[in-house]
């Protein structure tokens, strides 16, 4: 049986080969480029600050309660709502729209690859990139936050609540990359300039806690907030406006993000079938 006959009979073998090739090519593009430096900076800025703080502040305090809350606030307000959001915007809009701007997408479209497979493979490469960058950053931030407490900090991080927090933050990071990634990939296929709808989306995510409980459910942040292991209460005017909702079970929140990701990816797959190359209008 020739290779082509084999692929005709078992198309999954061809698809997996093509999938791996595309993922490899895309990872090389997104991980090792100077143009990605701002995403690394975005991810690593708090790590650097926490590391400097760990060196400068010798922590004569006994408890770690304050550090737990500070880390939770950094994760929820910086990583989740800012760094991962804009990092994913940079990574995922580049996958299709970026290649149209650079006029190189047609090379993929002229290959014997199903367009849906191309979108999924590019998405997976984007998820791997974003999870590697932000997962590493969250891991390092957590480690630097507790390890300078010495033996006690190490114990907290490996056996105590710290280990649970770290797992939860990493899990939320993965879900955030999936959800935001799918949304930005789809937006980049619908809009020529996805920045404007992304800013609107950012605004929606930011005001989400103050809208009605039903509307809150149309947000990625809503589900991710309910997965957070440490509650960071809102303060000031924002606290007054916040609409408190029923807690969402972890499994439902995770499933919500996965369902949203799947739905948006299906839309992206539908769009890519109709995609035309007209670089002159880019």
């Amino acid at each position: 049986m020739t290779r082509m006959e084999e692929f005709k009979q078992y198309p999954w073998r061809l698809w997996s080969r093509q999938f791996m090739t595309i993922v490899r090519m895309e990872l090389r593009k997104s991980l090792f480029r100077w143009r990605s430096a701002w995403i690394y900076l975005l991810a690593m800025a708090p790590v650097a600050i926490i590391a400097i703080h760990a060196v400068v502040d010798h922590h004569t305090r006994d408890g770690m309660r304050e550090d737990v809350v500070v880390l939770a606030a950094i994760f929820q307000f910086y990583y989740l709502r800012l760094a991962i959001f804009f990092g994913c915007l940079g990574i995922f809009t580049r996958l299709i729209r970026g290649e149209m701007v650079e006029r190189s997408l047609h090379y993929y479209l002229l290959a014997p690859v199903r367009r849906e497979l191309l979108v999924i493979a590019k998405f997976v490469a984007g998820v791997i990139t974003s999870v590697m960058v932000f997962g590493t950053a969250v891991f390092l931030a957590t480690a630097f936050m507790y390890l300078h407490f010495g033996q006690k900090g190490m114990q907290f991080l490996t056996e105590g609540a710290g280990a649970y927090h770290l797992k939860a933050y990493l899990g939320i990071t993965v879900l955030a990359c999936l959800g935001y990634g799918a949304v930005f990939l789809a937006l980049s296929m619908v809009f020529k300039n996805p920045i404007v709808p992304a800013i609107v989306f950012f605004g929606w995510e930011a005001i989400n806690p103050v809208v009605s409980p039903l509307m809150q459910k149309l947000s990625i942040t809503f589900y991710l907030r309910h997965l957070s292991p440490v509650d960071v209460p809102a303060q000031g005017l924002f606290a007054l406006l916040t609409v408190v909702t029923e807690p969402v079970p972890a499994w439902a929140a995770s499933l919500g993000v996965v369902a949203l990701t799947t739905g948006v990816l299906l839309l992206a797959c539908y769009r890519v079938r109709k995609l035309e190359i007209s670089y002159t209008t880019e």
Partner: protein
Amino acid sequence: MMTTAHTPGSPVRAGFARDGVVDDRIVFENVSKFYGDVLGVNRVTLSLPPGITSLVGPNGSGKTTLMNLMTGLVQPTRGHITVLGMSPGDPYEFFRVVGYCTQFDSFPRDVTGFEFVYEALLLHGLDAPQAAKLAVEALERVGLMDAAKRLVAGYSKGMRQKARLAQAIAHHPSVLVLDEPLNGLDPMARAESLALFETLGRQGMHVVISSHILEEVDRISDQVVLMSSGYVVAEGNIHTVRQEVREHPMQILIRCTQPALLASQVFALDSAVEAKLHADGGGLLVRTRDLDNFYELLNRIAAEGKVEIQAVAPADDDANSIYQYLIGSDGGNS
């Protein structure tokens, strides 16, 4: 149901059997493409046989749109396109037999010439050694092997053109679509490329070329498609197309003895429009509306031995002249 399959790297062939019937044509059935209100091409109906087909026309005449439609980069607003019985909607079957060298002078970032061709072959499902072998073969064929390990970003325009051509032919397609493939090439590379296209065409492959170098594509073309403002204005063998342009009498150059005697005989024909003696007295330029009638006369005169015919050549039986007649342009800016 396809009954045969083309394996990348196997010798080319131009026909694909579907339900026992070999489909060896590129077919456009009443195809129109509009970009919003702007016309790309309109009501194009073509059936291109294997061999070298040249698409010629000025800027904006719809050549690139036709090629993009053929390869699925844009989709028709109306009509239907098949290439050897296949449609671009089935990319796996389609792009194993079709190679397209676009005129977009852009590349993925930070790739070498070798990687550019090699990675495209990996997408065909080939394993690494086979893809590397075919990549080297293609790069050697276009004369780019010496620069294969350099980044494409450092290539000259001609080298980038060659790299795109190498990628388009690397998987041994049966249909090769080339959009302005001679752009940026020096005269030597131009001649080599034309020789390559001619060889591929002779092997029974479909080679569809658009070029503004009319004389060059004219020389190697089996058929031409002349386009203007999104419409096909003429198509077919270049000589047949010329004969169809009846409002412009055909011109024939004859080198002979006694051109004045020949001119007087030519004027006896109703179809003769003009007979002009050469300044050196050794020939004649004849304009006629009926080429067959004229050649019959010429044979008779030659047989009678009154005039010695030394050479006969059509003077406007080329794409450039046909262009001027059909659309009032010499195609120089296409």
